[in-house]
């Protein structure tokens, strides 16, 4: 009974191991086509924000900043897919899990810091007018 289940476990494991080897985890190779698509998209997604800022095409700075940020986010996704070969299958989804966790941590750290410190700055402002207070 014990040996039987052990053999079964080994078969299961070797099957999983073979599967893991097939797609080389997070570092799977792409094809020439996928690299070139990724490169082409990256060039466009880099050139456009530089052009927007350097030429000052859009007068409203807030709009320009928003577009630049969105393009950067898109380019990061492009790099993840075409250069880092991210997908939901590699390493049985564990690379994706690790990445989702990291993204959550990064978003909390960034928005949290900026939000809290912005409000701190705003609320510090009236300090300058203390002398005019009753």
């Amino acid at each position: 009974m014990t040996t039987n289940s052990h053999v079964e476990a080994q078969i299961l494991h070797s099957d999983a191991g073979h599967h893991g080897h097939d797609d080389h985890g997070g570092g799977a190779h792409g094809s020439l086509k996928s690299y070139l698509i990724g490169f082409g998209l990256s060039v466009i997604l880099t050139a456009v924000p530089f052009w927007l800022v350097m030429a000052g095409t859009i007068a409203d700075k807030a709009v320009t900043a928003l577009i630049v940020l969105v393009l950067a986010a898109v380019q990061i996704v492009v790099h993840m897919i075409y250069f880092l070969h991210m997908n939901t299958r590699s390493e049985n989804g564990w690379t994706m899990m690790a990445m989702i966790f990291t993204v959550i941590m990064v978003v909390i750290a960034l928005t949290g810091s900026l939000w809290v410190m912005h409000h701190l700055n705003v609320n510090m402002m009236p300090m300058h007018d203390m002398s005019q207070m009753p």
Partner: protein
Amino acid sequence: MSVAITTQSSIQDSEPVFHVIDEHAHPEGASTMLGFWIYLMSDCLIFAMLFATYGVLGGNYAAGPSPKGLFDLKLVALNTTMLLLSSITYGFAMLTMEKSKIVQTQLWLAITGLFGLAFLGIELTEFAHMIHEGATPQRSAFLSSFFTLVGTHGLHVTFGLVWLVTLMVQTARFGLTEANRRRLMCLSMFWHFLDVVWIGVFTFVYLLGMLR
């Protein structure tokens, strides 16, 4: 006496076992890729903290120089091009490695290294220029956080280059063995990851800095 032994052994037999008694097979390097990916994610957190620091302190010029007077976007654009080109040439190195063409792989790795060196050279020129103008890390909170963030990225590229040269020597001496392929794939992830971080740097620091 013999009765005592049998009782003891029967107790041992009946004791439940909660783990796999035999060590199951762990093929060499089977977990390297996942492990390296988790390292990259932890590195990502380091950069997130540095970005957050820059985001908070980036506007505190202490009556010193501001991004508009300091940054040269043409130079940054050139730098970005260098890093992007090195990313695609590393991709070509991976493709030729897959076909076991050792000379071509080495050639693409060398080209990648040269683009990496060009990136570092341009960045150091920029830093030297800034420091010459008095915009040192000590000048203001903006400059402290700027040099920490961009400098940390530059250090990563430097160590990536050291690693690249090491692997080229390894490949030249021992060929594209299974271990060397695995190492080259780890460096591939590292290199592309640095390019991803640079997207954040040129957007968050340089482009948004000019819009401030």
